[in-house]
């Protein structure tokens, strides 16, 4: 059994880390799938280039928040083999904590008042 780290010590996450964890919490992804899913989720505002993506994946893996799954053949990519990534239990806990933190922020008076003043975006 690995030494378990305190999930709180990773909070706050960087936005891109949170996006990756949340996206992986639904299902395992290969790199391409991950960038596509994130682009959809953010309505195209976050486009991850390979260098940046794998820099973050490396960091998340080093922290034990994600892990490498096996290579699989992907039908829609001309049946090429791709490596899949999956979230760890620690990663899920950290993502949940981060979501809680963001929810608290969104529920704060300041944000509510801001929304009321400017109306729905």
């Amino acid at each position, binding site marked *: 059994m690995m030494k378990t780290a305190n999930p709180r010590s990773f909070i706050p996450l960087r936005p891109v880390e949170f996006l990756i964890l949340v996206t992986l919490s639904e299902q395992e992804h*290969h*790199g*391409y799938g991950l*960038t596509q899913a994130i682009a959809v989720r953010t309505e195209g505002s976050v*486009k991850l*280039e*390979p*260098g*940046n*993506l*794998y*820099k973050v*994946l*490396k960091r998340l893996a080093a922290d034990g928040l994600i892990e490498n799954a096996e290579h699989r053949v992907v039908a829609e*990519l001309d049946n*090429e083999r*791709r*490596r899949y990534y999956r979230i760890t239990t620690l990663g899920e806990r950290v993502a949940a904590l981060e979501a809680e933190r963001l929810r608290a922020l969104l529920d704060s008076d300041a944000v509510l008042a801001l929304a009321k003043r400017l109306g729905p975006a």
Partner: protein
Amino acid sequence: MTRRRTSLSERVYGALLRLFPPDFQRGYGTDMRDLFRDHLRDARARAGLRGVTALWIRTIPDLFFTGFHEHEDEMLHAIVQDARYAARILRKNPVFALVAILVVALGTGAVSTIFSVANAVVLRPLPGVPDAGDVVSLQRVRRDGGGSRSASYPYAAYLTEHAKTAQVAAWEMIPLTLSTGDGGLLAQSNLVTANYFDVLGVRPLLGRLFTTAEAGIGAPSRVIVIGAGLWQREFHGDSAVIGRDLRVNGQHFTVIGVAPPSFNGMFPIVRTDAWVPMNTQPLVRRGGDLLRSVGSGWLELVARVNPGASRRAVATELSSLTKQFSAANETGPSADIGQFSTVQVARATGLPMDAATPVLAFFGVLLVVSGLVLLIASVNVASMLLARAVARRREIAVRIALGAGRRRLVRQLLTESVLLFSAGGAVGLMLSFYLTRLMTRIELPVDVALAIDPTPDARVLMVTLGVALVTGVVFGLAPALQGSRGDVASTLRGDTSASARSRSRLRNVLVGAQVAASLMLLATSGLFVRALARGHSVDPGYDISHTATALVDVGVAGYDTTRSKAFYTALTERLRAYPGVTQVAYTRVVPLSMNNMGYDVAIPGHSDRDGNSTTNLVAGGYFELFRLPIIEGRALLESDDERQPKVAVVSEGFVKRFFPGASGVGRQFKLDSSTTVTVVGVTRDVKFAKLDEQSGAMLYLPIAQHWRTDVNVLVKTTGDEHTLAGPIRAEMHALDPMLPPPVVVTLERSAGVALLPQRFAVGVTAALGLAGLLLATIGLYGVLSFSTAQRTREIGVRMALGAAASDVVRLVVGEGMRVVGIGMAVGLVLALVGSRALAPFLFGVNPLDAVTYAATATILGGAAMVACLLPARRAAATDPMLAIRQD
């Protein structure tokens, strides 16, 4: 077709992946290439070639930034790892680490202290002036570059109005008497043009500074800006000071603003207490209305180079403006201004332009000297590291055997030395904080309040750290390369002789370098000692003992000629009545104070005009007071006043120069092309301004015929001249309680100003020389002890074969002294070449002074001998039987 383009993009991408650290490539290279291929396919499907181009535009920065980031991470990781290991190793040898750190601290401390002082005096950009790099000093010189001339107000105003490449302002230092009602206070002030603060970009701390409201030379604007220091000292930082009435030289002025504490004028080492606008000149400064006089040069010029302009462009434009101005004003008393038509532009250093270069040279010499100490210290530590590398060769051989690469080992050993030097640099910096604090306590024999703050600033910090790091790498490299050159097999076998020879050669080079540096250091120190001794023993040609002097200017308190003459007559009578006082006199310039004044002298029928013959205005018993003999004719008398024909006493040198082969008495000359003066007496030649000057043509004029309200009162006593301050101040106060109490100094102390650079240099170089000698001696001793200890077995064998103890001593000492001798020879050659740079500071002591070098060599040789003898005698006491059985 499409297949080829795709594969080209992919191939390029694959090549670019080498930007990443190998670990990253191994872990994610394939995945990244795959993902890129996926993106490429999308891009091509979406927008063809344009899409591919867009993808590449996104991809290149992504690769470079993340690649760089990953490298940084990896390097940082490695550095931290190395540093941790190095710190652990050093902790295991605390004595070694401590000694090395202290030795480095001594060297870096020396450099950083000297640099701090140089920084405070001349290097630091003007404090309180934003973008000080654009601020320049201006100076008018002759076409041949010789001689300079201060600016008149009309000239300064002409430049200000017409210059396109720079904004020009003018200023002058003047003393002002300030009072709020009860008693006066002497304030070192600046008279400045209304645009002065704007040009410098200074903003007020409180109130406002001068604006166009104070511009022009019509009615005086009776306003004053005070410095933050004066505001704290005299007004306790009360903001109600704005709008307050202040008497300036007896006139009512209004305080309109307080300058920020960081700003201290253009010569920031001299304290500036207050600023008044130029149009108040007739009220606050002697010399009548100077604002309309084209012929009087009295202002300093400062300019801010406009954006886009270069200094060269400014110099060109101002020079041509100067020529135009001279052409338009080439009549009357200002006839000579046409000669000064070249404008020199130089970075505003905070010193007068002609002083900046010698001061820089002086600090350059001291920096080199402190650098020598650092060199010795660094070499010392390098020797220690080298010796340790020998002691650690087993550890290193084991690491090599276990597969550590040489690069990795060198990096590790370098990290250790850099760590040592950084720690030493930090301690050295602390040392310099302490030393500069000590320095500010030294009271300088000058009559102005100084504001030198040599506390190390960020620039000193950077330099010290940089110096420590560079020396750490440079002096750690050789031992690291040596140390990592492990001959694994022989070392592990215990055979030590394999690489010993190249190590001992390196050790000898290091010892030789220390000896050479020490010799240079001691020689420099010795030359300054000789210069100081020479300075003390130089006979200026007159007697300055038992004399005190006080600078008095009743002009600043609003006295006119008649009132001021009466004041000085009364003061003289009162002071002469004091018991012990034998003589009272006045002089415009105090001898040996490095000050000088010059008049233009022209002899009818003599083509040689002397534009700068040394002149002094004197009165009272000046010649008796200084025991200056009158060789011919008579001295100046108190009856030589403005009603009598103009007369002068001249020196023998003056007679020799202008009336060769004849008697001087009765001859006439023109002063400033207007006044005809008759010589009534001849006195002997003296050294007037400085001790190292050549005695030359010297001219004494009666002050009553060339009246100035600012004079130095000279009082000679039979008793202790230090007690004269009380009576002088008391009598002045009795005559006019509104006059500020003058600064009173003894003449011997004032003359000490001339020796100040030498005294400072002797103090610094002697301390550094001693430190260097000590370090070098200890280094020599350490290295010799180490190498004899390494040779114990060999010495044992020699003794067993019949060598006597004296033979062993001779062997060891001979070997040590051979290295010392070579080091001394190298040092001597370098010192003889380098000492030329010292010549301007030596009072004529020959930089190749044989006595100095003989003494230096003797001291160094003696110390080296002791350092060699100790290990030699220990070696001679070796028990051969024990030594042979060792290991």
